[in-house]
């Protein structure tokens, strides 16, 4: 088994065992989306209209919730030192850790979103569009978040600082994600335009996240 696939397997094991972040994110997402109809009230048209936005906000917060431990757990037990010393390029390590993080916490959100969309009285087309935008957009949240996680790796209780650093950077992802999802049900606006930009943001952050994250981790060693 190669170095990177063994890292992926280990990250998945850690995420799914006791104390891992996989189920936490999905449960938090469930709670946020369930609470909204109680707060907004039983206006079904309003719920249907804000549904995609609520699902996106829930997914964003759930992703941020588990990101602060992405590198910190390895730093606390000394494993990060060994990873920094190793032959495997740090950029690829960050990329694989992000992919594992998304598979463990992002993918369950995407799978849960059609069910939760029913709570929000959304139409089938809107449900499909929102799920698709989340599938394309949540990796971007993880990759952008990894930069913040790498920058705050040496800080105790860096989770809040991480959120403050990362939230402004995730705003474009959320704008285009929500506008693509609503464009699917509102006639004049085409779905493809915001969706293409969302996909582009995802690909862009997939390159930028690992490079910037690796640079931040190298600097944090000092």
């Amino acid at each position, binding site marked *: *088994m190669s170095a990177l696939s*063994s890292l992926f397997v280990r990250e998945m*094991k850690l995420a799914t065992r006791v*104390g891992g972040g996989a189920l936490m994110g999905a449960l938090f997402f469930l709670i946020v989306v369930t609470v909204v109809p109680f707060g907004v009230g039983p206006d079904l048209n309003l719920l249907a209209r804000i549904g995609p936005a609520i699902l996106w906000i829930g997914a964003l917060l759930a992703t941020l919730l588990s990101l602060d431990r992405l590198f910190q757990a390895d730093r606390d*037990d000394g*494993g990060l*030192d060994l990873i920094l*010393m*190793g*032959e495997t390029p740090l950029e690829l390590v960050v990329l694989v850790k992000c992919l594992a993080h998304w598979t463990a916490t992002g993918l369950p959100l995407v799978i849960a979103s059609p069910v939760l969309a029913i709570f929000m009285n959304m139409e089938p087309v809107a449900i499909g569009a929102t799920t698709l935008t989340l599938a394309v957009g949540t990796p971007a949240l993880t990759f952008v978040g990894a930069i913040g996680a790498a920058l705050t790796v040496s800080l105790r209780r860096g989770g809040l600082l991480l959120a403050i650093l990362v939230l402004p950077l995730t705003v474009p992802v959320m704008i285009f994600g929500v506008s693509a999802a609503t464009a699917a049900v509102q006639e004049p606006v085409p779905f493809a335009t915001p969706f293409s930009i969302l996909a582009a943001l995802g690909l862009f952050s997939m390159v930028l996240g690992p490079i910037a994250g690796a640079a931040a981790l190298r600097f944090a060693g000092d």
Partner: protein
Amino acid sequence: MSTSVKRLIGRSLSLDRGGRRVLQDLSFEAVAGSALVVTGSNGAGKSTLLRLIAGLLRAVSGEITVDGGDPELSIPQQCHYFGHMDALKPQLSVEENLGFWRAFAGTPDDTVIEALDRVGLARLATLPAAYLSAGQRRRLAFARLLVTKRPIWLLDEPTSALDAASEARLLEIVGEHLAAGGLVVAATHLALPFERMDSLRLGPSVVEAA
């Protein structure tokens, strides 16, 4: 194996930590087959020196070179760093922890079971690392040095938390590494009984004298 490292040389190294000079104009030479034992009081810079060799800290001036070794690899990539932290995940079992580092670090040497047997943990292979005692964690962390082949071993207080039998076993393994032409730099405040060793004493007096 023409890639064995013959010598590890540090020339006039200086290093600052938190605005304070920890190492000043330090030079050393470690020769293959002989342990370089770094001694000194607490805060003298023993761990700092090992982390500097491991590439985890950057020197203000001076350089570290190797004589021999694989020209494709950097010095840290040829080093095993056995520091204060054990790099173990409590959720994973003993063999999963060790198996990960074996697969991740490349150039595998002993198998996981062989290495666990050498440090006396073979019986506990399937136990989650969370249940290990401090000494057992230390031995499991040391087994990481056996599953991948690297010529330079940087040992920071290698015998801490170990009982007398485990300590003897560990020193025997380090002795085998030296006998096979390996290179060891060990920081300690105890006397380590190696057959061939050079010593490097760090302390405030060294800094002031330089």
